[in-house]
């Protein structure tokens, strides 16, 4: 029996499904990543303000369309074990895409190889909230802390808490400093504590911890003209980065938040206990790609290394959701953690989903 390779058929089917489901703008108030919690909120949607139109991408070859991006010595193969219960709520891969104002939004989330090997769930979670009238976009990424059981639950509780709290918080606060971010993070910490209470279970004597999560939150304000005001804050090593694609010799990443995380030798800061380790920053965003990225991806970006260099060519325009998934699911020996990236391009009339 002859026919197209199964991988190509699957890729085409997935592309079509994603494009059909996600084309256009982000759902206002949509909580991404958790199928069971997806709840579209009806309301008017502002038309996209196109600062520059981007041509639809050239067709990719089958070779480009499948398989992860390899950026160095590839890791050794590992056995991928199925979770005891697999469902859309515990998916190993997730992708999202759409537009907000003149911002193209892409999200990709992948279960790490080490977790696949151990039949452990993806411990990252994300949420993207688009204010229905275009006032603001909130993106948050949480990474269940390694060593703690139920880290996935803590991460999920954190982003759902951000989704629940952010509208009222933004109505009452201008996120311009630690003092204004603190109510949001303190509230999230309380929610994480409450949602994960009783989930301790068996844990290592040393190095384990109660369910905990890092959290980074970015707010991009709409209607910015040539630049958008962007405010961000984080606890732990989930980072907010700006990627310059015009740097000589490739791209270049800068962490927007002050480094390093103050967690020190004993691990990264995390919620619910680490509210005092909150760091924040504010920029006028006029160029480059903004990322909110869990450590599994951010840690692989280094000055002049292969991944950072490759981004220049790959991200000059917003990639399709499946392409971004390939990039985020990169292969490099010793990098085996979960990865989640929310990426924002400014001044884009997003046509890559059409």
């Amino acid at each position: 029996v002859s026919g197209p390779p199964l991988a190509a058929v699957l890729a085409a089917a997935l592309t079509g499904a994603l494009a059909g489901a996600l084309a256009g703008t982000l759902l206002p108030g949509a909580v991404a990543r958790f199928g069971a919690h997806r709840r579209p909120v009806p309301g008017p949607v502002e038309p996209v303000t196109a600062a520059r139109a981007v041509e639809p991408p050239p067709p990719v070859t089958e070779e480009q369309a499948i398989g992860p991006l390899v950026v160095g010595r590839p890791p050794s193969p590992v056995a991928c074990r199925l979770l005891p219960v697999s469902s859309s709520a515990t998916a190993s891969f997730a992708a999202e895409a759409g537009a907000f104002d003149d911002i193209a939004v892409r999200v990709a989330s992948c279960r790490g190889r080490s977790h696949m090997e151990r039949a452990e769930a993806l411990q990252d979670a994300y949420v993207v909230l688009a204010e229905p009238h275009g006032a603001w976009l909130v993106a948050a990424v949480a990474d269940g802390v390694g060593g703690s059981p139920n880290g996935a639950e803590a991460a999920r509780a954190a982003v759902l808490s951000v989704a629940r709290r952010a509208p009222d918080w933004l109505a009452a606060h201008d996120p311009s400093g630690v003092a204004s971010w603190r109510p949001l993070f303190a509230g999230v910490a309380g929610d994480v504590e409450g949602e994960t209470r009783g989930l301790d279970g068996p844990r290592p004597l040393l190095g384990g911890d109660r369910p905990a999560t890092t959290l980074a939150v970015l707010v991009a304000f709409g209607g910015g003209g040539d630049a958008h005001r962007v405010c961000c804050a984080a606890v732990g090593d989930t980072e907010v980065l700006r990627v310059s694609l015009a740097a000589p010799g490739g791209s270049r990443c800068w962490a927007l938040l002050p480094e390093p995380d103050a967690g020190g030798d004993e691990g990264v800061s995390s919620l619910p206990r680490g509210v005092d380790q909150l760091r924040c920053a504010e920029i006028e965003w006029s160029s480059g790609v903004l990322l909110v990225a869990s450590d599994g991806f951010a840690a692989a970006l280094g000055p002049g290394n292969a991944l950072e260099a490759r981004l220049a060519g790959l991200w000059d325009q917003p990639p399709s959701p499946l392409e971004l998934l390939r990039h985020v699911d990169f292969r490099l020996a010793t990098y085996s953690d979960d990865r989640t990236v929310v990426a924002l391009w400014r001044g884009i009339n997003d046509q890559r989903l059409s």
Partner: protein
Amino acid sequence: MRPMRTGRERAFPFYVVCDVSQSMWDPAFQPPGQLVLPFDVLREAIPNLLFGLERNATVAEAAMISVITFADAPHVHLGLMRPDEVVLPTLEHGYATDYAAVFRDLRTVLSHDCEGLAKTHDVRRPAVFFLTDGQPDTGHGPQPEGVWAAPLAQLTAPAFPWRPQIVAFGLGDVEERTLCRVATAHDALRLAFMADAAADSGAVVGAIMHALSVAIADTITRGKLVVQAPAGMRLACGARATAER
């Protein structure tokens, strides 16, 4: 000492530091009813530990292992390398239990190893698993704490960029106070484990080596030191761990 982001391959250095003094191998030093000599267990368990790490692909590509023995003098039994590159020589034993010399040598070895590794890798904080069955002794008499505390302090000084986290495992005659002095603090706990008084030393050594294989794999997966108490051992240096559980 949180590493700056480099995007390089990561390396987790682990040093298994084993006491091979006379009490580990001389039957005359073993209590009545001791089934197997601790040294014999160690001799078999170290290759098994390395073999187990080699078989775990995720661990084998990120772990760097060294085995150092100490008695009359420290000896680098296995230089720092990946588990799948190891050719292990025969383990040799000695007589004394010279803590000062091994702490002094460890600082030199860690400096050399980690500085070399850092040229090409993102090197994580080294971990030393320190296994001993006796009080510090030079062979001519006890080694006072004043003699070995200084090189230990230099090894663990905040100014030393490769200062390790030391997990101490004690059996036989070693005193809890000594172990607690050697072990470093982690999550506000001293990383010291004492064998239960009634435990068979050979069995405890086997349990320690098993715990090390789990700890190394978990540490690489989680990105931070994770240790479980070996069977037949208890956490020394206070009761906070019990309260935290």
